[in-house]
């Protein structure tokens, strides 16, 4: 069971306290109507599937309840870092 560092609690806690929440840094457009069908399709359905560094979101569901961002290596399953939502991509 992986240990995950919650950037809000500043604690290393077991994986079962957290829930995965998909790829990170996909901001909802301020004005979705300005998106073409193709752009909207990409926003809705297209996600990265990298071998290696992956930016992803987690929620400390059974802790503080906050969503945060993480960089995890999909090969080794090791977390490189976690950081608060809204902070720049690491």
């Amino acid at each position, binding site marked *: 069971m992986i240990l995950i560092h919650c950037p809000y609690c500043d604690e290393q806690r077991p994986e079962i306290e957290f829930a995965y929440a998909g790829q990170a840094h996909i901001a909802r457009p301020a004005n979705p109507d300005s998106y073409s069908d193709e752009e909207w399709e990409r926003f809705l359905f297209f996600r990265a599937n990298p071998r290696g560094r992956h930016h992803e979101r987690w929620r400390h*569901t059974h802790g503080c309840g906050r969503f945060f961002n993480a960089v995890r290596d999909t090969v080794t399953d090791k977390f490189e870092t976690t950081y608060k939502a809204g902070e720049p991509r690491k």
Partner: protein
Amino acid sequence: MSGYRLPAGGRVDRSKPVTFRFDGKTYQGFAGDTLASALLANGVTLFGRSFKYHRPRGVLAAGNEEPNALVSIHRGPGRFTPNLRATNVELHDGLNASSQNRWPSLKTDFGAINDRLGMFFPAGFYNKTFMWPRSFWERLYEPAIRKMAGLGDAPTENDPDTYTATYAHCDLLIVGAGPAGLDAALEASGTGKRVILIDEQDEAGGGALADPALWPWLERSMKALNAAAKVTILTRTTAFGYYHDNFIGAVERLTDHLPENSDGPREKLWRIRAGEVLLAQGAIERPLVFDGNDTPGVMLSSAAKTFANRYGVAVGKSLALMAVHDSGWHDVFALKKAGIAIAAIIDARTDVDGDLKAEAAALGISVHLDHSVIGVSGRHQVNSIEICANNGNARRTIPCDALLMAGGWTPSVHLWSHSKGSLKWRDDLGAYVPDQANENCRSIGACAGDWDFGKGAVFDVLPTLRDQARIKAFVDFQNDVTAKDINLAVREGFRSIEHIKRYTTNGMATDQGKTSNLNGLQIASTALAKAVPDIGLTTFRPPYTPQTFGALAGHAKGALFQATRTTNIDGWAEENGAVFELVAQWRRARYFPQPGEDMHAAVNRECRAVRGGVGIFDASTLGKIEVVGPDAAEFLNRMYTNPWKALEPGRCRYGLLLKEDGFITDDGVSARLAPDRFHLTTTTGGAARVLNMMEDYLQTEWPDLNVWLTSTTEQYAVIALQGPNARKLLEPLVQGIDLSPEAFPHMTVREGLICGVPTRLFRVSFTGELGFEINVPTAYGRALWERLMADGADYGITPYGTEAMHVLRAEKGFIIVGQDTDGTVTPYDAGLDWAVGKKKPDFVGRRSLARPDIVAAGRKQLVGLLTEDPNMVLEEGAQIVADPKQPVPMTMIGHVTSSYWSETLGRSIAIGLVANGHAIMGETIYVPMPDGVIRATVTSMVFYDPEGARLHV
């Protein structure tokens, strides 16, 4: 009869005789014996039958690597464990064991015919032979093969034992309490570190237990460790898996070694998080591959030493040694000194150290260097062996009743590999050893290839004069894989060891190849003319040794498998005969049958009561979220399809929630209590999902909004009072709320008191009747329910369950998200256009409602379905076609999502998703069923009171 108890020696307690049974026969051993050592001491050589050929098998090893001597242990009704290694089963009074995979008995096994036919059972035999006809595989071939080839029987009764689990944290976890592990523990003790030392055996010591010279050291060490603060020693505990971030799973066996079944837990699952892990698992001796190497009495040299030194048991009266490694020589010297006759030492190496030869000479042991065993005679036990010089000369027979194999050592890298540490090949050891760590972990002692066993050579198969194609030289004893099978796999084109493993099943038995993997690799390496590291290594996976399902399940079984959520009113429902159903984790009353009623009679009565008088329903399970803050209305406006900003305090609104892809994900009626406060309701099953989704948008998309979300599902008991008499019943009990239709119209909310208790009183209806949903603090739920039941007697109050609720809402065409929708239904598809705020610039899912696929024609839409025969109730899930005469497979245009008998209407009603449904009102569709085609007409979904006259009273 071959083995015997030595007159002295060993760690068994000769003052404590133990009586036990094996295959119905009674034997005696001593406290401290294993089942294997006690049976060997009684002269038993035959322990089991092999997996495929049903060959007689004895004991190969003395530890957990044992592939042959698998037994079933009976501990009374339901307490049956198959496939335990006799070498790991601790002896106790009354132990009842039996052998496996034989019929009618171990000595006379009809399945042994497979052995005579062995030449017809090569690798891949089953796949190649039982191909045709295909239909015979499941019905005939597989059941027959499974019956013939197998291990122990699966238990047939529920396991009455209990199992427990715990978490543990430590700075240093040491796996293995042999000399290396104990040294490490001693070094760490007193440093202030929290240390856990675990070992799978009944006492710590590992290899030292088979070396009497180390016993004084062992005693001193254990005394020091037992006295040390912060050192926890767990024996009878197997670390079975090494997971991420130094998380180790281990099972402690608490009661199996005791004569009586205990009331306490049988096993305990330890989930250990360690700062550092030291692996000191030791090494396993490798068998040698030659014709007849599976005959009972052929065993690992180290095992014979362990049986003699630890258990005081000689495995035979006259032992021969076949060695390619120095360690076998040392074992034999020790055995000779313990008083056991040694017939000969045969070593396939051309020469060995002078010291070894000198000691053999001094002990009077005859030595044959550059020789190999080429045959073993004896079926149920070794009678003699045939040896031959490696140049093909000097064939001779040596009488003996046991043959020891010293094939070198394989470091136990199982846990290291679970942790994804890398391995490197060492030619001198003919084995893989740990290389780069992936966790904070080190391997020490023999499992790191660091040992003082001497040196050896590596042979894939021993030289032989015999035809390689006709000999049975076993590599994997448990799965009956021979050297010939591996060579065949290579000839048939398999190149990767992963493929060779799966084709031959080498290393795939319950022992996971502890004794066979490296011999298999060596043979494949020779056959492919490639170095071992170039053909790969199969993956090690947990568990290290088989573990019980009970230990892994722990307390999570039966009623504790999953939490059952109950409402404050649940007890009343139970006392009043409710039939329950599970909705998500909630237990809900489905209907309340009266004596003699079946479900339909009860539901029909409950429906009549709601339409004609008043019904009472426990709606406490509805999800509830309190939305508070100056931006609460703005937030809901962005989340839901409907407009919320203009909603006045005191009013309710049906909210429809989409996902960003435009499909319906939840719905519910919500109320504005104050400009900055909303009381949301969600579906019972969707409550957690909706809160998570709202938190996601609030935290990450619109963190500028000042809004707080709180789950209040369990803070309120909710009683729905529905029916024409609802107001009359409620009025006298309410204080501070005017219930008149003018002051309190449909879809409004008021706060006040009911029976003196604060309430949020909703005037809402999921039945189409005049209705109220009374929210009170949870603790008052049952008291209020009972008061309403008492006061409602005059009005014919009737409790109804979820089934009647479903019928009543379907009569009104109210959808249930998740039943009538399936994640592909838009508001337009569901006929809920009216709930979409057309003037809103944005809300979650809005942009998707203009996606090409969603505006395309021909989408499946929710419609009502009325069968031509009013008594015919459609099956939910039944498929709908436009033309029942078309050839099979037909084109399906939709399916039935809800279908009931409507007592109110005196006929069946249904809702379905039908392609282009809104445009084909009045047309006939068809539902083909096994016993005929059902005709139905597409209609509006609102079957009852379409004007809503009954609501607005």
